[in-house]
């Protein structure tokens, strides 16, 4: 498979470990990624401001991928939601389509809707498949207990982004994590929101939402959490110290991106997978499972 990698804004700045590990794992599993330097914001912030603005910002990126006859892979779940929802809305609404066409014409682009939008994790699940990941594993992560955090926009709206996953009972991330040899946990906050959507509006409320997720994974005795969205990780990992202070609790819970975990099981170098950029250090996990650790 060959597709354009859509970085969005948060991943290339705040989640370079996610980007680096996905590039490596994609390469190892036979997915060819094309960078399009002209890509811009997915339109997510504009969705709260104005419908047409959000549609135009999204469609600009879709048109750029379409011009190269490529589907588009997102790292960020909010980018996925924004691009896929805009695509649906534009294709279903002739009036909106005409308005978007007018705006794109001014910047010499054309949107026909040929480009499909798919999340990086879903590419690994649907194109590669959990069975093939399992076959490629060189260093099984046996004994590792993982709290998978699906987040919201990877699953919902179910009819736009959910694909084979039922938003209320998803399995894709669990199956891939289990393919690495690790164990996935059933825990109360498994499908909960990270709170990231309101960090900029009410930090205290947002962090209280995140605290619930961390507490729930911690109570389930997870060794780490696994996410597929830079914003979930900013909340669960980047803000973990602040939350510990605010709630007088101690989690010290590593939060890994799915491709980091898969990469580790494929025997890839932890430095190349960006483990040094993780804010909560995964020392115990690396001591146990990195390629040069003795077992």
């Amino acid at each position, binding site marked *: 498979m060959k597709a354009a990698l859509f970085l969005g804004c948060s991943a290339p700045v705040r989640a370079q470990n996610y980007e680096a590990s996905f*590039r490596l794992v994609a390469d190892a599993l036979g997915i060819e990624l094309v960078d399009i330097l002209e890509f811009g914001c997915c339109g997510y*912030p504009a969705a709260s*401001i104005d419908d047409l603005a959000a549609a135009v910002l999204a469609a600009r990126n879709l048109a750029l991928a379409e011009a190269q006859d490529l589907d588009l892979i997102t790292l960020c779940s909010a980018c996925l939601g924004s691009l896929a929802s805009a695509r649906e809305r534009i294709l279903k609404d002739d009036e909106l389509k005409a308005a978007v066409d007018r705006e794109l014409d001014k910047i010499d682009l054309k949107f026909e809707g040929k480009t499909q939008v798919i999340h990086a994790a879903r590419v690994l699940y649907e194109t590669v498949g959990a069975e093939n990941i399992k076959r490629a594993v060189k260093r099984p992560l046996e004994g590792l207990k993982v709290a998978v955090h699906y987040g919201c926009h990877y699953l919902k709206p179910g009819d736009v982004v959910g694909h084979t996953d039922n938003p209320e009972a998803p399995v894709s991330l669990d199956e891939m994590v289990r393919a690495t040899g690790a164990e996935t946990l059933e825990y109360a906050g498994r499908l909960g929101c990270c*709170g990231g959507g309101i960090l900029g509006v009410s930090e205290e409320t947002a962090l209280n939402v995140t605290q619930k997720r961390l507490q729930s994974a911690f109570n389930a005795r997870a060794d780490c959490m696994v996410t597929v969205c830079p914003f979930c990780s900013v909340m669960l990992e980047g803000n973990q110290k602040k939350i510990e202070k605010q709630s007088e609790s101690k989690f010290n819970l590593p939060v890994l991106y799915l491709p980091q975990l898969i990469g580790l099981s494929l025997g890839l170098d932890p430095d190349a997978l960006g483990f040094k950029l993780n804010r909560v250090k995964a020392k115990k996990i690396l001591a146990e499972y990195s390629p040069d650790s003795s077992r």
Partner: protein
Amino acid sequence: MTEEFKHGEEALPCFSCGTCTAGCAVREVHPGFDPRKIIRQVLLGRIDDGLLKETVWLCADCHTCSERCPQGVPVNEIIMALRHLAVKRGIVPAAYKGQMDTIHKSGHIYEVADFNKKRAKTGLPELRDDGAPYEKIYSSLGLDRVLKQEEEK
């Protein structure tokens, strides 16, 4: 229903069961936020200042309410439409204004080229900021004007 708000009809099937509120992640930690009540306010035409200035911006946009509503009310979309109404009245939270302004200037919510040094260290390709297409889009859609306007008294 206020004439300005066109999404009231989508709320009509609501029978106020509270499934939206029961599943709301924000509500769990912030009792003042209640999606069922927001839909009620829309149905009764009580779209007041408190709703537009504060409440609607507290939704984390997780889509759980819309996904679970037994009556198919697009709760999440109605909250977004209320935000659009707020914006028309000059209410734009600073966080959104900041992000929209940076997109205008650079195409992203961060000036991504500032991070090229760090990206090179991680072995990642260089990125570029380019506000030119956004300058055209913003001025054509009147977004620059919307983001500069003062809040209505």
